[in-house]
């Protein structure tokens, strides 16, 4: 088996395990990463919502927000885990295509 194939199998294993990154924080009641709070959390923590923050924070509507599907905020952990794996597959497919294109565009033709 080629090394590249082995490495992609490793990436596949990580994709399969990725819901751990969702389940463990949920289990241990860990909140957002520092500095990645939403408007409500900032309001609760500081008592106000900074004006500039309010204007900029809703600038971009991501198609798969927080590695889930749109409108899936209240879904249970099993459904969210499934969405997480789908997100990993979609994200990695797009990243692989872009990196291969960039790499092929840049790499020296000899060797």
């Amino acid at each position, binding site marked *: 088996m080629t090394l590249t194939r082995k490495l992609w199998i490793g990436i596949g294993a990580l994709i399969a395990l*990725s819901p751990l*990154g969702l389940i463990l924080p949920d289990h241990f009641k860990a909140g957002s990463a520092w500095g990645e709070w939403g408007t409500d959390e900032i309001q609760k923590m500081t008592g*106000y919502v900074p004006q500039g923050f309010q204007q900029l924070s809703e600038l971009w509507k*991501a198609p798969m927000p927080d*590695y889930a599907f749109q409108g899936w905020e209240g879904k249970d952990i099993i459904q969210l885990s499934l969405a997480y794996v789908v*997100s990993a597959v979609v994200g990695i497919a797009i990243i692989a295509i872009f990196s291969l294109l960039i*790499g092929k565009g840049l*790499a020296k033709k000899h060797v």
Partner: protein
Amino acid sequence: MHIPDGYLSPETCVVFGAVMIPVWTVASRAVRKTLSVRQVPFLAVGAAFSFVIMMFNVPIPGGSTGHAVGGVLVAILLGPWAACIAVTVALVIQALLFGDGGITSIGANCFNMAFVLPFVGYYVYRLISSGSPVGSNRRIIAAGAGAYVGICIAALCAGIEFGVQPLLFHTANGQALYCPYGLNIAVPAMTGEHLLIFGWVEALVTALVLQFLQKQESLLVEGGIS
């Protein structure tokens, strides 16, 4: 460490965008000189690895979460400039597709995680591992140390970027316009949690994967994949 939209002022975002454009330009030139066609698939694996490892949020029970970035491992295997490009691709897709990290803060996030992290990590690795034979334990330890220092310095940068906001950008009565926490809170929070927890996660992931690769493919690691 993915700074969302709204935490950094537009001015800050322009500055980091302006810093990253020449970095990306030099990275492209460097990779053009050093990356062989055979290494291109590894660039894709590196970007994919960085993306997926960032999905493994590690909880501080009852507190916040954080994650490894994988950028130092990619830098050790493919060189820091290739790592810069690989992590940039991952960060851009995270921001656009998944809303993980802002659109306006892509420059700052790439500065921290795609530039500072792989370069600091790579040079710490080189310093500690210099002269040691391929496959030696010193290389594994050097990789772990590089990963730890790299992610902690990147977190320090993010902490400073957050922390200068209320100093520089506030209303007439002193209310913050963007990130509400100053340097006295942002820097200890960002560096503290990485020094104590997430830095060790990055170190462990980097050292373990490198050790595995050295065992599997002993030819692989002399100056990276070739």
